[in-house]
């Protein structure tokens, strides 16, 4: 399947255009710029990175990793931040508070870090019920306990009615990387296996249905969960089977879903990722809801799943270990890394054909996290 590409001038022309340096041409921000898809990448690379460029930011990972101290006191830290604007604030399987803790903990965990401390800032619209805020904070406390982190600093702003929609939360987090692992979206190697920790699309579908606009009733629940202990077990297992360095990339496929995450890895690592549709776990109810809504579960957000690219020799051992963890019960291998065509995610359909799984364009579902 690869030989023909390189000989095709048209394909190269299209691919060149596709990989051109991202420029932000739009004159105003639209919802598409927040969707996790291509427009957001254009905003980040074409504007934020242009203005704030530095070597740490340039990596465009979900967290910055840097060293502090010297000699014996040296430590490798991971640092990240994320804002949460999900609507509704309570949904089956979680709420904005649990999400705000888990999302940031997961961004830290994806670097192999042990999450330590969080900050938490609240932007509250006047009129927001104190009782709901209390429930959200109790949920944050429970999630923080589960994740083994402390919320150690914070901020509160109240804005007038209409200045924000109910409640926005920002959290930042810091964690320590205790093993010499180098996990990065740019480290996928030809021959590596692609792992998924469970079913896709649960969170986004839950939120969409929880909004009640669709008059669909299901038992789908958000998968919001902290993944730090799953990552820790994966690194332990890899170290036991070969070395912890066998885990090359880790990402949590939130906005834009697994499809967007795989595209980011394929582009950063300059490889082709080939997945098989029949291996990707999708819950029956999610499959059904997406079918009705015309969504592709591959592009729907997750909040308690991870994608891992690992050396082939440790893949089976890792999957077995992940399946022993509460947040990895449906873990499986879904594909592998090929050399060509670079920067592309291809999927073998259950029907026997092949198609490209491109990055999401435009807005699929706003405000799901």
């Amino acid at each position, binding site marked *: *399947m690869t030989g*023909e*590409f390189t*000989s*095709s*001038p*048209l*394909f190269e*022309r*299209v691919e060149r*255009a*596709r990989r051109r340096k991202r420029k932000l*041409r739009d004159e*105003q*921000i*639209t*919802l*598409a710029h927040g969707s996790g898809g*291509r*427009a957001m990448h*254009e905003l980040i690379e074409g504007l934020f990175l242009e203005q704030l460029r530095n070597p740490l930011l340039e990596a465009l990972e979900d967290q910055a990793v840097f060293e502090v101290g010297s000699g014996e006191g040296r430590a490798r830290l991971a640092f990240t931040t994320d804002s949460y604007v999900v609507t509704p604030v309570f949904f089956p399987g979680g709420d904005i508070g649990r999400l705000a803790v888990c999302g940031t903990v997961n961004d830290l965990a994806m670097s192999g870090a042990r999450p330590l401390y969080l900050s938490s800032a609240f932007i509250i619209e006047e009129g927001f019920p104190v009782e709901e805020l209390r429930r959200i904070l109790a949920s944050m406390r429970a999630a923080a306990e589960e994740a083994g982190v402390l919320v150690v600093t914070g901020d509160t702003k109240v804005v007038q009615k209409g200045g924000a929609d109910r409640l926005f939360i920002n959290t930042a987090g810091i964690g320590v990387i205790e093993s010499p692992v180098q996990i990065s979206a740019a480290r996928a190697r030809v021959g590596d296996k692609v792992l998924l920790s469970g079913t896709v699309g649960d969170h986004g579908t839950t939120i969409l249905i929880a909004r009640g*606009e*669709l008059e669909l009733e299901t038992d789908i629940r958000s998968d919001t969960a902290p993944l730090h202990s799953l990552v820790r077990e994966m690194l332990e297992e890899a170290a036991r089977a070969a070395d912890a360095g066998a885990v090359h990339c880790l990402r949590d496929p939130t906005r834009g879903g697994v499809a967007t995450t795989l595209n980011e890895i394929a582009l950063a690592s300059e490889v082709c990722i080939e997945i098989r549709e029949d291996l990707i776990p999708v819950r*029956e109810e999610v*499959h*059904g809801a997406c*079918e009705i*809504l015309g969504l592709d579960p591959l592009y729907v957000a997750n909040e308690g799943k991870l994608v891992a690219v690992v050396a082939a020799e440790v893949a089976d051992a890792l999957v077995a270990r992940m399946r022993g963890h509460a947040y990895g019960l449906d873990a499986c291998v879904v594909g592998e890394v090929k050399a060509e*065509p670079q920067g*592309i995610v*291809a999927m073998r*359909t*259950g*029907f*026997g*054909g*092949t*198609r*490209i799984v*491109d990055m999401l*364009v*435009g*807005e699929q579902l706003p405000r799901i996290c």
Partner: protein
Amino acid sequence: MKFIDEYRQGDIAERLAAEIAHATTRPLKFMEVCGGHTHTIFKYGIEDLLPENITMIHGPGCPVCVIPLGRVDDAISIARQPGVIFTTFGDAMRVPGSKTSLLDAKASGADVRMVYSPLDALKLAKKNPGRSVVFLALGFETTAPSTALTVMQAEKEGVENFSVFCNHITIVPALKALLDSPDLQLDGFLGPGHVSTVIGTRPYEFVPAEYGKPVVVAGFEPLDILQSVYMLVRQVVEGRAQVENQYGRCVNRDGNRKALEVLFDVFEPRDFFEWRGLGSIAHSGMKLSRKYARFDAELKFDVPGLRVADPKACQCGEILKGVKRPWECKVFGTACTPETPIGSCMVSSEGACAAYYNFGRLSKIAERSAAGS
């Protein structure tokens, strides 16, 4: 999933594909008229399963793709009027008008909202009695009945702040225009399944009778499409040209009488309606009938109603007619991409260009352009 996965079985597909390859004795070009078919063909990689000598041409059956620039401009102008809540299906948000899209209008302050059905728009109108809620109605006879029922409901309940900007179109005049176009070379049609659930298969009978081309009305699952292609090949090989119905589980010869009655009550044909790329086609558009004229946004609001020529670089017209393949357009994949669409075929996931860009880049483009150039 029950009743869905049965139509997606790879092993049956392989057998069908082998049958098709065996039966096809010369190069054949078939057009799938409906955008839903185009989407399925790409999503499941069906072209990979078809023999080399069968070419699928992706027809004008994506309602978002055939909406002309001028109508998008009109929609934006309504959306920008004070007090208006403008509602639309998600696909239509990004369709470029001559200057901007509805998504841009939304970002610069217009109240544009995505809905999943026209009834949601009516609900919004009832919830916001002080605002004027407009629904952008789009699509063939498939979606027109739900618009019609909503308008009837609005009348029944006296929801005067609700109106419809009607861009409903009908498939048969468009088919006729295609068949009359001199540069068209086709061996048969996959008939649109959803439209046919409403209008039945009888309206296509002129295609074999007057033009000698076979039609197979097809369902939307991948096995439906393969089976329909097989039925078309059989017709050609056996020298037959007739209307056959592969989608018997949903479609009959006379259509859905109730839905048709509703359509005739709420809509009347326009003398002409412009299709992007295909030009003006007589009796191909619907507008609200006199009885429901007070729900017609075109009468309620001042709309510019200007005809805007398609961008020069864009070859959507040739592509919709199947005269050019998407990758033969000069701007395909470079200036015109799903994120910066010039032509509307690049906007909707049912558009031929977007489908090629998203799903087909990998194999077909490379293969065909290598063979062709």
